Protein backbone atom coordinates (compact mmCIF):
# COMPACT_ATOMS: atom_id res chain seq x y z
CA UNK A 1 0.00 0.00 0.00
CA UNK A 2 1.57 3.28 -1.03
CA UNK A 3 -0.83 5.21 1.16
CA UNK A 4 -0.43 5.39 4.91
CA UNK A 5 -4.15 5.73 5.51
CA UNK A 6 -4.92 2.69 3.38
CA UNK A 7 -6.04 -0.50 5.05
CA UNK A 8 -6.40 -3.93 3.59
CA UNK A 9 -8.38 -6.84 4.86
CA UNK A 10 -6.40 -9.90 3.81
CA UNK A 11 -8.95 -12.67 4.39
CA UNK A 12 -11.81 -11.05 2.50
CA UNK A 13 -10.02 -9.00 -0.13
CA UNK A 14 -11.16 -5.43 0.56
CA UNK A 15 -9.31 -2.18 0.11
CA UNK A 16 -9.97 1.06 1.95
CA UNK A 17 -8.21 4.25 0.94
CA UNK A 18 -8.20 7.86 2.00
CA UNK A 19 -5.70 9.75 -0.09
CA UNK A 20 -4.48 13.31 -0.56
CA UNK A 21 -3.27 12.28 -4.02
CA UNK A 22 -5.60 11.77 -6.98
CA UNK A 23 -7.41 8.45 -7.14
CA UNK A 24 -5.71 6.09 -9.60
CA UNK A 25 -8.28 4.17 -11.64
CA UNK A 26 -5.60 1.68 -12.72
CA UNK A 27 -5.10 0.75 -9.08
CA UNK A 28 -8.86 0.43 -8.57
CA UNK A 29 -9.28 -2.02 -11.45
CA UNK A 30 -6.08 -3.84 -10.51
CA UNK A 31 -7.40 -4.50 -6.99
CA UNK A 32 -10.86 -5.59 -8.14
CA UNK A 33 -9.62 -7.95 -10.83
CA UNK A 34 -10.35 -11.55 -9.88
CA UNK A 35 -10.08 -14.60 -12.10
CA UNK A 36 -13.27 -16.02 -10.55
CA UNK A 37 -15.31 -12.82 -10.96
CA UNK A 38 -17.50 -12.44 -14.01
CA UNK A 39 -18.18 -8.79 -13.47
CA UNK A 40 -17.01 -5.71 -11.71
CA UNK A 41 -19.01 -2.53 -11.10
CA UNK A 42 -17.18 0.67 -10.27
CA UNK A 43 -18.97 3.83 -9.20
CA UNK A 44 -16.88 6.97 -9.64
CA UNK A 45 -17.90 10.34 -8.26
CA UNK A 46 -16.28 13.39 -9.80
CA UNK A 47 -16.04 17.03 -8.81
CA UNK A 48 -18.86 18.84 -10.61
CA UNK A 49 -18.55 22.35 -11.99
CA UNK A 50 -21.90 23.44 -10.60
CA UNK A 51 -24.02 22.81 -7.52
CA UNK A 52 -27.17 24.47 -6.22
CA UNK A 53 -26.99 27.03 -9.02
CA UNK A 54 -23.42 28.03 -8.19
CA UNK A 55 -20.39 27.78 -10.45
CA UNK A 56 -18.01 25.57 -8.43
CA UNK A 57 -14.26 26.06 -8.91
CA UNK A 58 -12.86 23.39 -6.55
CA UNK A 59 -13.69 21.15 -3.60
CA UNK A 60 -11.85 20.35 -0.42
CA UNK A 61 -12.45 17.21 1.61
CA UNK A 62 -11.79 16.65 5.28
CA UNK A 63 -12.28 13.37 7.10
CA UNK A 64 -12.23 11.87 10.56
CA UNK A 65 -9.79 9.45 9.00
CA UNK A 66 -9.74 6.65 11.56
CA UNK A 67 -13.51 6.49 11.76
CA UNK A 68 -13.99 6.85 7.99
CA UNK A 69 -11.74 3.83 7.39
CA UNK A 70 -13.61 1.92 10.10
CA UNK A 71 -16.88 2.82 8.39
CA UNK A 72 -15.49 1.66 5.02
CA UNK A 73 -14.78 -1.65 6.74
CA UNK A 74 -18.33 -1.87 8.09
CA UNK A 75 -19.74 -1.09 4.65
CA UNK A 76 -17.62 -3.84 3.10
CA UNK A 77 -18.69 -6.25 5.86
CA UNK A 78 -22.36 -5.44 5.28
CA UNK A 79 -21.88 -6.00 1.55
CA UNK A 80 -20.27 -9.37 2.18
CA UNK A 81 -23.08 -10.36 4.51
CA UNK A 82 -25.75 -9.53 1.93
CA UNK A 83 -24.26 -10.42 -1.44
CA UNK A 84 -21.84 -12.97 -2.73
CA UNK A 85 -18.93 -10.78 -3.78
CA UNK A 86 -15.27 -11.37 -4.51
CA UNK A 87 -13.65 -8.02 -3.77
CA UNK A 88 -14.65 -4.62 -2.45
CA UNK A 89 -12.83 -1.29 -2.70
CA UNK A 90 -13.74 2.05 -1.15
CA UNK A 91 -11.56 5.08 -1.82
CA UNK A 92 -12.16 8.71 -0.94
CA UNK A 93 -10.05 11.67 -1.91
CA UNK A 94 -8.98 14.14 0.78
CA UNK A 95 -7.73 17.71 0.51
CA UNK A 96 -8.30 19.96 -2.45
CA UNK A 97 -9.68 18.45 -5.68
CA UNK A 98 -10.14 20.17 -9.01
CA UNK A 99 -13.18 20.09 -11.31
CA UNK A 100 -13.40 16.77 -13.10
CA UNK A 101 -11.14 14.95 -10.66
CA UNK A 102 -12.37 11.77 -9.03
CA UNK A 103 -13.39 12.28 -5.41
CA UNK A 104 -14.81 8.86 -4.56
CA UNK A 105 -14.75 5.31 -5.89
CA UNK A 106 -16.78 2.31 -4.74
CA UNK A 107 -16.00 -0.88 -6.62
CA UNK A 108 -17.22 -4.45 -6.27
CA UNK A 109 -16.36 -7.56 -8.22
CA UNK A 110 -18.59 -10.62 -8.08
CA UNK A 111 -19.29 -13.84 -9.90
CA UNK A 112 -22.66 -12.46 -11.04
CA UNK A 113 -23.19 -8.96 -12.32
CA UNK A 114 -26.53 -8.38 -10.57
CA UNK A 115 -24.80 -8.69 -7.20
CA UNK A 116 -21.95 -6.39 -8.24
CA UNK A 117 -24.46 -3.71 -9.29
CA UNK A 118 -26.53 -3.94 -6.11
CA UNK A 119 -23.53 -4.06 -3.79
CA UNK A 120 -21.81 -1.07 -5.41
CA UNK A 121 -25.03 0.92 -5.23
CA UNK A 122 -25.46 0.07 -1.57
CA UNK A 123 -21.81 0.96 -0.91
CA UNK A 124 -21.92 4.47 -2.35
CA UNK A 125 -25.33 5.22 -0.80
CA UNK A 126 -24.12 4.22 2.65
CA UNK A 127 -20.74 5.93 2.26
CA UNK A 128 -22.48 9.19 1.42
CA UNK A 129 -24.83 8.88 4.38
CA UNK A 130 -22.47 7.56 7.06
CA UNK A 131 -18.77 8.13 6.39
CA UNK A 132 -17.43 11.05 8.47
CA UNK A 133 -16.18 13.06 5.51
CA UNK A 134 -16.93 16.72 4.86
CA UNK A 135 -16.83 18.78 1.72
CA UNK A 136 -16.05 22.47 1.34
CA UNK A 137 -17.13 23.98 -1.94
CA UNK A 138 -15.19 26.82 -3.47
CA UNK A 139 -17.25 28.95 -5.85
CA UNK A 140 -16.97 32.36 -7.39
CA UNK A 141 -17.17 34.79 -4.51
CA UNK A 142 -16.71 32.44 -1.57
CA UNK A 143 -16.77 28.99 -0.07
CA UNK A 144 -19.09 26.88 2.08
CA UNK A 145 -19.36 23.49 3.76
CA UNK A 146 -21.85 21.41 1.82
CA UNK A 147 -23.72 18.40 3.20
CA UNK A 148 -25.41 15.48 1.47
CA UNK A 149 -29.18 15.44 1.46
CA UNK A 150 -30.53 12.85 3.88
Amino acid at each position, binding site marked *: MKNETAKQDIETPCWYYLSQEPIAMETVHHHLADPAAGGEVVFTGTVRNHHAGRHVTALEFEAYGE*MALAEFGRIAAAIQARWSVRKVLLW*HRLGRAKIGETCVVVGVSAAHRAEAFEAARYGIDRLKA*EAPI*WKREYFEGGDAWV*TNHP
Partner: protein
Amino acid sequence: MTEKMSLQVRLFSLLREQVGRDSIEVVLPLGASVADLTRALRVTEPRLTPFLEVSRIAVNLVFALREQKLSPEDDVALIPPVGGG
Protein backbone atom coordinates in the same frame (compact mmCIF):
# COMPACT_ATOMS: atom_id res chain seq x y z
CA MET B 1 -19.68 14.67 45.54
CA THR B 2 -19.98 12.69 42.28
CA GLU B 3 -16.78 11.48 40.71
CA LYS B 4 -16.00 13.32 37.49
CA MET B 5 -14.40 12.37 34.18
CA SER B 6 -12.93 14.59 31.53
CA LEU B 7 -13.47 13.84 27.81
CA GLN B 8 -11.83 15.41 24.78
CA VAL B 9 -14.49 15.70 22.08
CA ARG B 10 -13.13 15.91 18.54
CA LEU B 11 -14.53 18.62 16.26
CA PHE B 12 -14.51 18.66 12.47
CA SER B 13 -15.18 20.93 9.51
CA LEU B 14 -17.75 23.64 10.29
CA LEU B 15 -17.71 22.88 14.02
CA ARG B 16 -13.92 23.08 14.19
CA GLU B 17 -14.07 26.44 12.46
CA GLN B 18 -16.88 27.76 14.67
CA VAL B 19 -15.01 26.95 17.85
CA GLY B 20 -11.52 27.59 16.48
CA ARG B 21 -10.12 24.31 17.87
CA ASP B 22 -10.15 20.68 16.77
CA SER B 23 -11.31 19.37 20.13
CA ILE B 24 -13.06 20.59 23.26
CA GLU B 25 -12.83 19.34 26.83
CA VAL B 26 -16.03 18.42 28.60
CA VAL B 27 -16.26 17.42 32.26
CA LEU B 28 -19.03 14.94 33.11
CA PRO B 29 -20.04 12.75 36.07
CA LEU B 30 -18.61 9.23 35.82
CA GLY B 31 -21.18 7.03 34.10
CA ALA B 32 -22.69 9.87 32.06
CA SER B 33 -24.44 8.99 28.83
CA VAL B 34 -24.16 10.31 25.28
CA ALA B 35 -27.30 12.40 25.93
CA ASP B 36 -25.59 13.92 29.01
CA LEU B 37 -22.59 14.79 26.86
CA THR B 38 -24.78 16.60 24.32
CA ARG B 39 -26.38 18.65 27.11
CA ALA B 40 -22.98 19.48 28.58
CA LEU B 41 -21.65 20.59 25.19
CA ARG B 42 -24.43 23.17 25.00
CA VAL B 43 -23.24 24.72 28.25
CA THR B 44 -19.49 24.36 27.71
CA GLU B 45 -19.50 25.79 24.19
CA PRO B 46 -22.64 27.78 23.25
CA ARG B 47 -21.32 28.29 19.71
CA LEU B 48 -22.00 24.58 19.10
CA THR B 49 -25.68 24.86 20.13
CA PRO B 50 -27.17 25.49 16.66
CA PHE B 51 -25.40 22.37 15.32
CA LEU B 52 -26.06 19.87 18.10
CA GLU B 53 -29.56 19.02 16.85
CA VAL B 54 -28.26 17.80 13.46
CA SER B 55 -24.96 16.30 14.66
CA ARG B 56 -24.24 12.78 15.90
CA ILE B 57 -21.86 11.59 18.60
CA ALA B 58 -19.33 8.91 17.68
CA VAL B 59 -17.76 6.80 20.40
CA ASN B 60 -14.73 4.70 19.55
CA LEU B 61 -15.29 5.21 15.80
CA VAL B 62 -18.97 4.15 15.88
CA PHE B 63 -22.09 6.31 15.94
CA ALA B 64 -23.49 6.02 19.47
CA LEU B 65 -27.02 5.79 20.79
CA ARG B 66 -28.22 8.48 23.23
CA GLU B 67 -28.42 6.03 26.15
CA GLN B 68 -24.89 4.69 25.71
CA LYS B 69 -22.68 5.17 28.80
CA LEU B 70 -19.33 6.90 28.42
CA SER B 71 -16.02 6.05 30.08
CA PRO B 72 -12.93 8.22 30.44
CA GLU B 73 -10.96 6.15 27.88
CA ASP B 74 -13.54 6.61 25.11
CA ASP B 75 -12.56 8.31 21.89
CA VAL B 76 -15.43 10.75 21.41
CA ALA B 77 -16.26 12.92 18.40
CA LEU B 78 -19.04 15.28 17.40
CA ILE B 79 -20.01 14.50 13.81
CA PRO B 80 -21.87 17.22 11.91
CA PRO B 81 -23.85 16.30 8.76
CA VAL B 82 -21.50 14.59 6.33
CA GLY B 83 -20.76 15.52 2.71
CA GLY B 84 -18.51 12.82 1.32
CA GLY B 85 -18.78 11.39 -2.16
